[in-house]
């Protein structure tokens, strides 16, 4: 996972000042004055300063982030309803830093994907399907996942640490098939077409992560809910190097 870029905000600036003060003061107290109390004071400043640097200055409340992700599914639901889309979504690898979803309107095969990947991003991708912007796409972009991130690590980071949308997540890959199991989901969209085509909210985010990490189209196959856990099935379409 890549190191997040340090945006020097006020809190981080104050933290850096405390660190510098703590190092200088603590070093002087230990080496010159020889007093352990003042050295401990310098040490405390260093610890507090480093914690202030590590904590982001203006975190957005998690409930607000989750609400925005859930609410943004409304537009997708409206589109799916308008065009009567029923096909299973294909999460496409990032384009311009964003993951898009292709929802076929009719019969669809892997061979059609090459054309979809080449076509410009428009709501109606030819006559074959819809190109929609899943809510999880922006979340994945903001997480700044590195290209070398492992899939399960990336899923855990996005769903558990960043969004706190689930309690835990596991991913198993067997050939082209991918199974993602999440426990304790805390985000629900309540939109039937969205859930049928793209998966439930957390599954949709997982699909975006998978497409981002794999760099290849990921087809959503379906999901099952059992007692507080959701198991989603995907298929990675290996198109190879073009």
């Amino acid at each position, binding site marked *: 996972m890549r190191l*997040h870029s340090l945006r020097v905000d006020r809190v981080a600036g104050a933290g850096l000042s405390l660190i510098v003060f703590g190092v200088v003061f603590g070093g002087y107290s230990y080496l010159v004055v020889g007093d352990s109390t003042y050295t401990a004071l310098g040490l405390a400043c260093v*610890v507090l300063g480093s914690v202030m640097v590590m904590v982001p200055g203006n975190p957005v409340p998690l409930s607000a982030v989750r609400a925005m992700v859930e609410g943004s599914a409304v537009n997708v639901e409206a589109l799916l309803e308008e065009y009567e889309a029923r096909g299973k979504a294909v999460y496409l690898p990032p384009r311009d830093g964003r993951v898009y979803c292709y929802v076929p309107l009719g019969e669809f095969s892997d061979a059609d994907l090459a054309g979809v990947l080449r076509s410009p991003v428009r709501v109606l991708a030819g006559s074959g399907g819809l190109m929609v912007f899943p809510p999880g796409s922006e979340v994945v972009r903001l997480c700044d996942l590195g290209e070398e991130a492992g899939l399960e690590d990336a899923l855990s980071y996005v769903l558990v640490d960043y969004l706190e949308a689930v309690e835990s997540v596991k991913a198993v890959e067997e050939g082209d098939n991918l199974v993602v199991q999440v426990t304790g989901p805390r985000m629900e969209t309540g939109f039937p077409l969205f859930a049928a085509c793209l998966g439930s909210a957390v599954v949709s985010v997982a699909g975006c992560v998978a497409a981002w990490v794999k760099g290849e189209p990921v087809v959503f196959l379906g999901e099952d809910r059992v007692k507080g856990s959701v198991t989603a099935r995907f298929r990675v379409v290996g198109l190879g190097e073009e």
Partner: protein
Amino acid sequence: MFLALVSLSALGERRLEVYFSIYTVIHFACSALYRPRRRWLDVPGGLMFAGFCVIVMRKVLEIIG
């Protein structure tokens, strides 16, 4: 943390390891209670834990030796 510093210095504690150990405990207790969001891994926590392990090892070696 500053409360711990004042309390320990008022009690006349001169050993730096004691201050460091108490700071480590306070750091992890606060992290567990408040679960602050972080930009990256808990580097200060990791370093403090490593220092704490070094202190414990030195004490154990002192007792054994």
